[in-house]
């Protein structure tokens, strides 16, 4: 297991993020830096990762835990390489979110909230993603997949399997 440490290049990105905020307010960079850390260190935030971020931003580790555990995008436990987050709120529910979840469940052989044995996919139901006009939909990493049908889901899963990963926060393209 490699040491939890950003590359020189990532450190530069972190420093440029810190520079957006006034002197002494580097804690403001916490959420953006946690996003980067999560993307770089396996899709979740271990306590080592969080302690490392705390040391980078010169804040107490508990300040990082408090924040990381508040926001639903931060995973405090490992998840699959591709996290399939299905919106199940109001308008999505009206337009087949539950059917989408059950299709994914049958297709992947896991229940919502679980990860496939090969560690490839996790299904999770989440609250409103702001895509109510294009329901049902899911988010995988950086990308929104909207107006989903079973066929579209098949194609998406095939594509993700072939690529072996989701587009993450640090992908620039």
């Amino acid at each position, binding site marked *: 297991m490699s040491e939890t440490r950003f590359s020189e290049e990532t450190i530069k990105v972190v420093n440029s993020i810190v520079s957006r905020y006034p002197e002494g307010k580097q804690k403001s960079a916490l959420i953006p830096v946690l996003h980067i850390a999560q993307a770089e260190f396996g899709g979740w935030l271990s*306590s080592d990762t969080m302690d490392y971020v705390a040391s980078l931003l010169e804040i107490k*580790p508990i300040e990082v835990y408090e924040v990381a555990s508040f926001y639903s995008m931060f995973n405090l436990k490992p998840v699959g390489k591709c996290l399939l987050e299905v919106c199940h709120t109001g308008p999505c529910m009206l337009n087949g979110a539950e059917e989408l979840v059950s299709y994914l469940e049958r297709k992947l052989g896991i229940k919502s909230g679980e990860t496939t044995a090969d560690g490839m996919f996790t299904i999770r139901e989440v609250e409103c993603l702001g895509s109510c006009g294009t329901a049902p939909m899911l988010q995988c990493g950086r990308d929104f997949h909207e107006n989903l049908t079973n066929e579209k889901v098949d194609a998406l899963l095939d594509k993700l399997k072939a690529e072996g990963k989701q587009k993450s926060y640090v992908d620039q393209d």
Partner: protein
Amino acid sequence: MADKIKVTIDGQHIEVEPGTTILNAARQIGGESVPPAMCYYSKLKGSGGKCRTCLVKVSKGSEKDPRPMPKLVASCQTQVMDGMEVENMTSPEVLEARKGVVEMLLINHPLDCPVCDQAGECDLQNLAYEHGAAGTRYEFERRKFNKINIGDKIQLHMTRCILCYRCVYTADQITDGRVHGILNRGDKAEISTYIAQAIDNDFSGNVIDVCPVGALTDKTFRFKNRVWFTKPVDAHRDCENPKCSGKVVLWYKGEEVLRVTGRKDQYGEVESFICNTCRFDKKKTNDWVIEGPRQIEDTSVISSNHYEMEHMLPVVEKDPELMEQNQKMFHKKIQ
């Protein structure tokens, strides 16, 4: 100095310094009109506003702008204005809202008072008694957490916590390194160190004193005795820690000091914070200079039968001066 501000609370007039909150103005009046406070703590900056038990109605904003405030306000956070009129116990709306808050605070509380060390000196117990309803309408499973030890002296019983944040402010402001905080969100929020860690520094024991419920308890006192069977005595010592006042209450059972706490005022707030050495390590009578029996409010279960003449506390009996004090208190009580 700026002129004092006139405010009326439940029909009682008082003049207070500008910047005073409604709650503190009410405390200056005293008595029934003081709103209960489960999260506000005058010695902790930033505390308050969260529990909503101190909600009051502002029926007149001020002399200049007499409009009432549209919603009930947290009296611990709202500053008085000149000519403001506040309704607390006189407002059915306030009482109804407060009853609602108490119900909310209790739906996930374990109600394990019979085995809780805080019983008898619990703010939530008192609040529920004074403002709550007799039954609960909540029929679902209550939130549960495992008990954990945070260090060898303090136990965290999260199931009882009402998330007042006082212990977090204490750790931030009184100790020199906070390692615990509020984790998670909503009704899953909890006090935790995240990865099991001891809260261990010179002043960490104060989190026990500021906790309004039995969520943070003194492991050295755990299940030793019900508080109402112990007898509190004011004492002090010349503590070597410059930040510690050394002014404490010793809780006796017979000749034995069962626990040491800070001195709490009538609103349950400690008068000054004490260090862990005084709290946990000084449990012999000869560690202390005894000042005399602690005066406890007559309404508290702790005061019942305390300073009677027949079964005097050994430390009192040995000292003529303390005997005299005891006698005075006794006579005051039977008057």
